[in-house]
């Protein structure tokens, strides 16, 4: 882990990846706070983990499956019950910039 400082440009890029609209002041604040926290995270550099395996799960488990059987779906009403907008039994969303 290199000691890198996160810049406002980085913050803007991460905000785009996260789909979070940030105001100018927020970008400044985030840059400062994120830098502090990342500096703390760099503590892990003190440990040599060269030959250590990564644990993405806390308990070791394997081979959990379900059978290929059909179970009941939701009614269309229930499926759309929380939709902010819907039309013709579909979820309605603002214009997608069409790439297909």
């Amino acid at each position, binding site marked *: 882990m290199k000691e890198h400082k996160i810049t406002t440009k980085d913050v803007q890029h991460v905000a*785009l*990846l996260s*789909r979070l609209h940030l105001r100018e002041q927020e970008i400044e604040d985030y840059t400062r706070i994120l830098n502090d926290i990342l500096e703390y995270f760099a503590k892990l550099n003190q440990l040599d983990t060269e030959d250590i395996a990564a644990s*993405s*799960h806390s308990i070791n*488990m*394997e*081979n*959990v*499956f*379900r*059978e*290929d*059987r*059909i*179970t*009941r*779906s*939701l009614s*269309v009403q229930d*499926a*759309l019950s929380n939709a902010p907008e819907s*039309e*013709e*039994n*579909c*979820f*309605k*969303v*603002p*214009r*997608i*910039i*069409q*790439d*297909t």
Partner: protein
Amino acid sequence: MEFEPVIGMEIHTELATKSKIFCGCSTTFGSPPNTQVCPVCLGMPGVLPVLNKKALEYTIRTAIALNCKISEITSFDRKNYYYPDLPKNYQISQNYACLGYDGWIEIPCGDQRKKVGINNVHLEEDAGKNYHPETPVGEEYSLVDLNRAGMPLIEIVSAPDMHSSPDALAYMTTLKNLLQYLEVSDCKMQEGHLRFEVNISVRPKGSDQLGTRVEIKNLNSMKTAIKCIEHEIERQSEILETGEKVLQETRLWDEPSGSTRAMRSKEVAQDYRYFPEPDLVKVLITTPWQEKIKSNLPELQEAKKKRFIKEHELPEYDANILTSSKPLADYFEKCVKIHPNAKGISNWIMTELMRELNNREMEPDECPITPGHLASLIKMIDQGTISGKIAKQVFPEMLDSGKLPEEIVREKGWLQISDEEEILKIVNQVLEENSDTVKTILAGKDKAIGFLVGQVMKISRGKANPGIVNRILRQKIKSMQP
């Protein structure tokens, strides 16, 4: 300067499981929107995925058939990006430990065969569908149907081992065939079971350096993929001719203009931030399990061909053609089950049926002539109810109307005349009207009998049973011999 293309493909195929990959919703095609969804595939708060064992086994089957090494431990990763047809805004896929890798498939290349490497085979979930209705400017919106979200997909990533559009076509066709034979997917193009992505670069012929790679997404048919490849080869070659550089980018096929265009979206580079899926546990694919799947593979092309030759007593030529695709082989066998004239059925399939399927770009199971219909037709010929010639007229009627051959024959009054008395009447009429020809025959020119047969057929409007006509005519002529 001459250029050669370097082509790799990514193919997504929808699996033929009954239920989705991580939940029990049905996978039936064409249902009304959002009628096959549940909290899990809707990505609602708090829901969790559970892996469909059949989907996994189909993936293992496919990887084995593609000569891949199978990962002893395979696991799932999250591919993070935002899109309204992806309700969780991440796709559960595989990145760090794909199920199959370093495989290959043989494709025909001219008279020979060549190997195309398979980089990896992995399992993932499909997204839903977006619709963009026509709206006035400024009021645009999109509609999302999540029935397809959560369908199981196998992605097959090839090595960049193809060097022409015929290569690519052979690859796609061979792979489609294999997937159908493996019974992991029906590969129905009209139901979107197969989707193609092309990675293509161009370099000077003979060079071993790779050119700049362009990615083209969302190609829904082999035809489109080929058009796209051919266009790209030209476009990139032209750029390189002028000394310019090809831009590394993702492009889309634009059907109306018959060309590719750059993507318009705001975000140019996608950072998928793959990380291990915490809600699923790893899968251990033991050797005994692999062996079991290998030994339980459905009958593949070679084996079926051999069986057709033996069981149905067909020549190799026929067996080759009939097994060239599984739907066709199935069609043939269904016919034979109803009416056991394998050779007769084979002939009709290889000539009439396949011609029509090709002309109409139709799959055997889309054909209005069902195996039952075709079997009936051939049975009618074999029983002498209609002649072979009439049958050739019935066939296009069947195709256009989807009606049973019996119905058509009845409506058109095309029943074969096999009544010997009736034929005798016509024969007598013909003999009378063609006394000169009769004399020629009696003088020794046997061949002219054919003309007389033709006359009988003409008068009977093709309905007379030619075999009987021939026999009766010859008898009569013999009896006229001095």
